[in-house]
């Protein structure tokens, strides 16, 4: 397909349809702002290795994918191509579909990316962004329900330290 806009439109339409049907079954309702459905599923499978799930939730449960997805439409926009190329490379190295590859193959691909003279740039970003999404503030889309803070034993709802009250829209408080 030559027309990228058309491709994005079809992907979005598919995502909406998928999300709609999943919601009907009470499943996940994640909708990408940046990633295609295929990229999203590759990313999900990759971050599951960066911060794996064990007795505590991992990167998938914290939805670090959403943190990355949001930032690629904002702060990290300049890294969009690195992500698209990197995810495509992950699929290629995994024989077409990273998410469907065996666990051993998935890990092997990560190691290849990590040590590749070019692709390591993508991998480095992925690790850094994954950590930010997992350990950073939930307002940016990751660390859902403060899972990492709970894991580390940091009191989640700070009685001290305003984290939940923000300015009313357009409102101002007196200075000084």
């Amino acid at each position, binding site marked *: 397909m030559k027309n990228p806009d058309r491709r994005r439109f079809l992907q979005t339409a598919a995502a909406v349809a998928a999300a709609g049907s999943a919601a009907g079954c009470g499943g996940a309702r994640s909708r990408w702002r940046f990633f295609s459905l295929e990229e999203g599923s590759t990313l999900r499978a990759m971050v599951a290795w960066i911060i794996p799930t064990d007795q*505590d939730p991992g990167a998938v449960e914290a939805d670090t994918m959403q943190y990355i997805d949001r930032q690629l439409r904002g702060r990290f926009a300049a890294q969009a191509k690195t992500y698209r190329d990197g995810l495509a490379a992950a699929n290629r190295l995994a024989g077409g579909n990273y998410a469907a590859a065996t666990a051993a193959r998935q890990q092997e691909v990560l190691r290849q990316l990590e040590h590749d003279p070019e692709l390591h740039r993508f991998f480095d970003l992925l690790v850094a962004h994954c950590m930010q999404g997992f350990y950073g503030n939930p307002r940016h889309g990751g660390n859902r329900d403060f899972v990492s803070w709970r894991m580390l*034993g*940091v009191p989640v709802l700070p009685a*001290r*330290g305003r984290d939940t009250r923000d*300015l009313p829209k357009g409102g101002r408080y007196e200075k000084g």
Partner: protein
Amino acid sequence: MKKVDAVVIGAGAGGGVVAKELSTHGLSVVLLERGKWYGPNEDRKDDLRNQRTTILGNNSGPEDEGNPRVVVDLQGHERIVAPSQGEYSNNAACVGGGTLTYGAMAWRYHPLDFRMRSTYGAPEGSTLEDWPIDYDDLEPYYEKAEWEIGVSGDDSNNPFKGPRKKALPMPPLPPTREHTLLRAAAERLKLHPFHIPMLRNSVPYGGRPGCMRCRWCVGFACEVNAKCGTQNTVIPTALASGLCELRTGAMVKEIQFDARGRATGVAYFDGDDRLETQEAELVVVSGAATESARLLLNSRHALFPHGLGNRFDWVGRNLQGHTYTGAVGYFEEDVYDDLGPGAGIAVSDFNHGNPGLKGGAMLANEFIRLPIHMLSYLPPGTPRWGKAHKDAMRKYYRHTICVQGPTQEMPLWESRVQLDPKVKDRWGIPVLRISGDKHPLTLETGRAMAEKAVLWLKEAGAAEIWRKLPGHGTSGGQHQAGTCRMGDDPKTSVANKYGQVHDVENVVVADGSLHVTNGGFNPALTIMANAYRISEHILQTWRGSRFRS
């Protein structure tokens, strides 16, 4: 714009104090600040976007868009950087400047910090020099800053400090677990631990409440206004005098001069990007070491075509900050008690008198760490991803103490800011180009300080210890200093001991730029004290249009 007695550029640690002193003594003042005035409730507690962790931007200016700088690395490669990138050496652009979001340690420099050349000689390759003033000259103004702006703490157990006439106005905050462990260990080592002086209310003071000990301290505006900066102390006092007008969003382009080279005021872009002129009898430059040097270099005249004060090429030279080194220790017991600000105990045993070294550092426990910060505190060799990384985060987060300190740097002629010949900011004003390195002695002292931290943590019972060692490149950032050195000789300094630029007596610098050396301590209180001293000189000698000689 109506002509005023004084225009003050920059509402930070220095400019806020000068604006207050002049306006409350009858001078008309316009205080220009390029940033905004953030109220305590406008600063979200966002661990990814704040003054110290700028992954998603900074919270106290300047904006990333339109405020570039050029950084030249040690290989000579240059690149354009934005304020939220570390190499930019950003402090802040807002009312209060760095004092809005700082950690607020309130150090008096050690008496020998003003006498580095006399104490240690002239190390090869360094521009090490004595200050033109002594600790004793500054002592009354340290006291004034401590009482007017507000300092808590207790340094009575610090035998190395300079003489103090008056105790601090507020008691220290109660100790944390870290503090208790480290104090006992320091005493066993025959060191002299004490409560860090902090520009932070421990009890209600100055009409503001005491610290609520939250974990959102360094990098954030204090929600309850317990942290004492110029934005909630001297600047409101200045405004209440009725003689000081604060204009935010005001980016100064240049200082203007008459034909004889006397300053007549400044040209600045207002919040709507209109070019305005503010005439004044006296121009006070308080933009911090990087931006003050930039303004001087951008202010030219036939008499000084290379920039104001720059006849002998000293403006922008000797850029310095601090080289932070120390160590992190792992403790089997839980040492995290979720009490801010975290930092509370220090020793000054190693600031001077280290055999074979020139200078040293105060060592203190580090501020409270949010989970995101822990990523850079893990032991070297920790796998950077996977289960082993997650295990390390779980193991270390509540079980580590960091002890570190600001090693005093040997100033370098080559470490500098200058104007970039090509790159301009969004107003078309030439931006800074930063280049330089650290002196080998600075690195040596930094490594030695890390070993002192190791000893302290070991004595406190740390089961594993890893070092934070110094790296190459320039420093600056929040502690930026040195670029408009004050001195008695116009050939080897930019300003005299009262901050007056040698070439033009009615331009006065009042910020960390003046620091000849930067002490082995956080510089904020010294900047404030020196601003009080400079203000007093202005008030005593200013005769409406001239200084009384």
